[in-house]
């Protein structure tokens, strides 16, 4: 599981590669911390290469969203495959995020 964060004009893109299961979630959360500390106006969570996400992974996403809201930042999701989108749908998370 890899998380790559890039910055472009003050907007951050976090690209996930692999599975965010229960075992991997803590590492992903750690990887996102530096980005969140910069209070970015826009965060794009790029799920193009995300193959799996468990509820612990969803909780990491929720945490990013809750954090960004404290400084008025926007969080976008992009590149979800159908299976992942289905998980978002089942859990109602699809209503929490905006998609790009």
């Amino acid at each position: 599981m890899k998380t790559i964060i890039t910055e472009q004009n003050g907007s951050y893109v976090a690209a996930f590669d692999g599975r965010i299961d229960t075992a991997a979630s803590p590492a992903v959360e750690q990887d996102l911390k530096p980005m969140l500390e910069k209070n970015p106006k826009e965060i794009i969570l790029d799920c193009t290469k995300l193959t799996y996400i468990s509820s612990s992974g969803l909780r990491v996403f929720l945490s990013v969203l809750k954090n960004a809201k404290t400084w008025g930042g926007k969080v976008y999701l992009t590149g979800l495959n159908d299976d992942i989108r289905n998980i978002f749908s089942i859990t109602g998370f699809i209503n929490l995020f905006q998609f790009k």
Partner: protein
Amino acid sequence: MNIFKKIQPQTPRWKSSLALIITAAVLIEATSAIQYWFASNGIQKEVQHRAESELKVKSLEIQNVLTAVEVAVNNKAWWIEQQLAQPDTMWGITRKLLADNEIIVGSAIAFEPYYYPEKGRQYSPYSYKQGKTIESKQLGTEQYEYHEKEWYTAPLQSGHGHWSEPYYDEGGGEMMMSTYSIPIHDQTGKAVAIFTADVSLDWLSGVINAHHIYPSSYNLVISRKGQMMACPVESLVMRQTIQELTAKAEDTTVLHVNRQMMAGKSGQASVKDPKGKKNYVFYAPLDDGQTGWSMAVVCSDHEIYYGLRQVTFSLMLLMLAGLALMVFIIYRIARGARKLQDVNAEKERIGSELRIASNIQRGMLPKIFPPYPERNDVEIFGSLEPAKEVGGDLYDYFIRDEKLFFCIGDVSGKGVPASLVMAVTRSLFRTVAAHEAMPERIMASLNDAMAEMNETNMFVTLFVGVLDLPTGRLRYSNAGHDAPIIMASDVKLLPVEANIPVGVMTGWKFPTQETMIVPQNTIFLYTDGLTEAEDTNHNLFGEDRMLSVARNAQKENKQEPQAVIRQMTDAVHGFVGEAEQSDDLTMLAIQYTKPQLDVRLLRSITLTNNVEEVPQLAQFVEEVCEVVEFDPATTMSINLAIEEAVVNVMNYAYPKNKKGNICIEAQANDVRLKFTITDSGTPFDPTAKEEVDTTLKAEERPIGGLGIHLVRQLMDSINYERIDGKNILTLRKKLN
């Protein structure tokens, strides 16, 4: 509910009755008034007729007398005129007149002054009756100059007969008299003398008051000057004139009558006597045209109308009584009708509310059979035959997480209260069993809730069962209900611990009992409406009959729930016959029909309670899914569900920092893939967690609960069992 709504006191029915009574009263009174009017009119005419004929009769009687006098005098007058040349014969003539006419008591022939020069100025032979003899004398004297008297001048002037005003003959006959006088003419036709006849009027009173048209009515006769000539009070006769008598009368009509009478008119009038009583006066002159007398008949109003008034009064009383009776009867009828109507309406309303309550009660019970057509592991049939009066029987069942929760109960008492308690019980059962899988806990929660709100001391005998469908394990708890029948190879009652009903005391324990149900066996539950069904002789259907029906069904291999209940129903109907059903007849039959399938795949892995081992789990799941040929998407969702379930156990089953094992077993047959997750940690039922709300906003979303939600969504079923100190969680997914 408006059971106690009051009826308005003034119903239209009563109003119409009132109108009827008033109409009847008006009609009766009007009839009475008209009848009185006609009758009094008739009576008045009758009185008038009687009075007039009385007047006529009396008048005729008087006239007969007077005419006799007149004729006698007139006949003698002719003779006098023949004898004018012989003055001395005049004495004899007068004496002869008296002798021939009893009624004439005196007679004179009074000549014009010096008609016979030799006889002087006042030649007037006069004879009169003195006792039985007739005396004669000269009438005119120095003291009695007759040429000036009315009896002399009046006929002289008029040229024909004249009756004098009546007078009292003092010093003579001591009687009332009137004098009839006619002129005597010589051959030249010149009046030369007046021939008189003094007539006693003693007979007049007798004639006048010999007979009365009414007992207290009276007649009177007055002269043309108003002198009282005949009246009931003898002392008034010739003592007073009618004017004097009535001078003080307040009723001026009296005076008018007097004038009319004295003027010789006839008529009638109503006058008031001095006592204020009403009297009717009918008056008419005597028809002779010479006397100027007038007669009156006086009758009292009271007497005339006494009879009529008596009759009318009685009639009025009778009518009033009749009316009162009618009012009373109508009132009673109206009230009776209203009461009856009220009672009927009340009955109708209660009846309809009871029917509604009964319908609501039955509407709450599951009634679609078979309830789970998609399942092949359980068949259920239930029936509730309500008694005439709504009762408090209930049964219910539902499947949650591969467990069949069911119950049957009987609320003490009947009627709406019982059905309300029944509804509450059923609702509590659903609520509690939604997150409790242990019968003892379901029963305890139910008992506490019921006991706390039990102000009416209504109890429920209740049997709660939880049948684990994958294993056939039946856990149950009984609160004073009849033991169900287990229809296995051998038909017998399920052993139940005796206990009190639900709702008696908070904190009471209802221990769980346990047994295994073998596939194809049937659990038959019922209420005492079955065992206590009575025939016409009040014999009970009883447990033995029930068991024998169940045994027959078993023998004939008719254990399907519907067949069992039909046989039982037929048996009880046959037994009861014509007797009225006294209680709800409620039955519920559950057949466990799990098919036995060959195991195609059986693998397992044991992990510790460390989330770092999740990738190993993912590896295991993927291998299993590959064997059963799930597609990648399904594989991913199975993977996710198993991970969530296992991580849940890893997090909660064991205390932190305490190592524990978790065994995951995958098993597949031709129909489904089953994962069994077993741990020996603290009792932990993940299915008891409440469902997460996926519609909440980000800020409101709780961190927990997502995992088990995903498991429920992704797998076909989730089932938790605690067996032998182990938590056993079973997840199933149908094969494609």
